[in-house]
């Protein structure tokens, strides 16, 4: 009888907590799993990698040589960039140009993908409010844009990917020679709605391309044109690579053009991402 009473109390308390403390419960659950997910990550990165290395030494040697060549090449590029930085600073001084707000980036390992339901296209990363991450911070990898931070707890952050149906990114096409506003649009996340047609049965899973909408109707961009952030949405800085254009066509209403875009980053194989934080709040340079 007493045990039944205990469970009734637990039931009532849980129901109350679910109804009255919703956001706190989300943070609490994420933080409760964080140490164990982090432990799994540590195991994968330190122990499992070494176990694999035992079986793949020859591969590692060739990979090491390739990485050394890459490092040498990047050192040269960094030296060139330093010279360019100095030149930019000198020219800004001459023009009395106010530089954009500085941003800092921090690497964040990916803890899990899609949460427990995989309804949304999201990631959970091991950096949170403790590390200065805030809602809305852009998330990138060297290949291109990944998404933005939507929820932050003390040690973790939820990242909404650009492929999520709720994602909207202000973008423009990198098309030299066209006027301002001609090639700007809004990039919509995927969602099983192919460009201009009904969904069809597909036996092989293909990544849904993103949809770039509201482009100027008279301009027909070439396939493989690079799509970058325009900075007009006040969330992402200008010039981040988002993806590459596949094809474009007039929207059904005939007022504007829409294009399908393949993301530049391989969003299904992310192990580590970079979170950009702006010191002076949201900014579009």
């Amino acid at each position, binding site marked *: 009888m007493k045990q039944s009473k205990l469970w009734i109390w637990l039931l009532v308390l*849980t129901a109350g907590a*679910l109804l009255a403390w919703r956001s706190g419960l989300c943070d609490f659950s994420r933080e409760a799993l964080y140490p164990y*997910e982090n432990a799994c990550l540590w195991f994968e990165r330190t122990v499992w990698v070494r176990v694999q290395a035992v079986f793949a030494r020859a591969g590692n040697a060739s990979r090491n040589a390739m990485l050394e060549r890459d490092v040498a090449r990047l050192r040269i590029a960094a030296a060139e960039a330093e010279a360019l930085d100095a030149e930019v600073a000198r020219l800004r001084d001459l023009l009395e140009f106010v530089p954009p707000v500085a941003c800092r980036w921090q690497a964040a390992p990916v803890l*899990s993908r899609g949460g427990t*339901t*995989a309804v949304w296209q999201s990631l959970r990363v091991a950096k949170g409010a403790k590390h200065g991450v805030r809602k809305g911070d852009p998330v990138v990898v060297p290949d291109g844009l990944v998404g933005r931070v939507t929820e932050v707890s003390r040690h973790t952050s939820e990242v909404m990917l650009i492929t999520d149906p709720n994602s909207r990114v202000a973008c423009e096409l990198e098309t030299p020679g066209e006027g301002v506003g001609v090639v700007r649009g809004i990039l919509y996340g995927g969602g099983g709605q192919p460009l201009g047609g009904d969904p069809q049965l597909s036996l092989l899973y293909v990544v849904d391309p993103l949809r770039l909408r509201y482009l100027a109707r008279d301009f027909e961009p070439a396939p493989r044109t690079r799509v970058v952030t325009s900075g007009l949405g006040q969330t992402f800085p200008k010039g981040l690579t988002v993806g590459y254009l596949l094809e474009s066509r007039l929207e059904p209403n005939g007022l504007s053009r829409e294009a399908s875009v393949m993301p530049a980053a391989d969003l299904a194989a992310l192990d580590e991402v970079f979170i950009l934080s702006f010191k002076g709040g949201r900014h579009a340079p």
Partner: protein
Amino acid sequence: MRLDMNLPVALFTLFVAALLQDLIPATPAFPAKIGLLTAVALHAALTKPMTVALTIALWAGGLTDALGGLPLVCTSAFLWLVYGAVRLLQRVFLEGTLVQGTLLTACAAVLQTVWTRLWVDTGEAFFAWHTLERLGYSALAGLVAGLAGFALCGLADRLSGNVKPAKESHGILWAETDR
């Protein structure tokens, strides 16, 4: 006072299920999550008293929603409805065995996908081929979840002493003698 071993067992199984469900990703080749939390709730519905089963269903649903970005009563409400259905079906044929639990979890996973789709708008057309494709993946994920979830819960129950696996010579479970 004798400690109710249902509580630590429930906490342990829910924690392990939540951790595994969160960590195992839905890949492009298999775009469905293994719903271990649902399996734990269904195991409780089949084998535990009503208050225990409903509390575990509420916890499992809350964890699924909190870690999956869903409205916080979405999955809990579904699991309570499933609990009612399971209790009705138990009068006819359902038992807490591994095989029946696995099949039940597969069916529940398909229904849960539809239920979740009714609660959240993902921007996809519902009456389309890819919905059928997704339901197929959910059923497969449910089979895996049911097998693993019922095995885990059964093991935890036996180790904790909630259920005694030893059989008499005539084949009746010791646990059956308490009913």
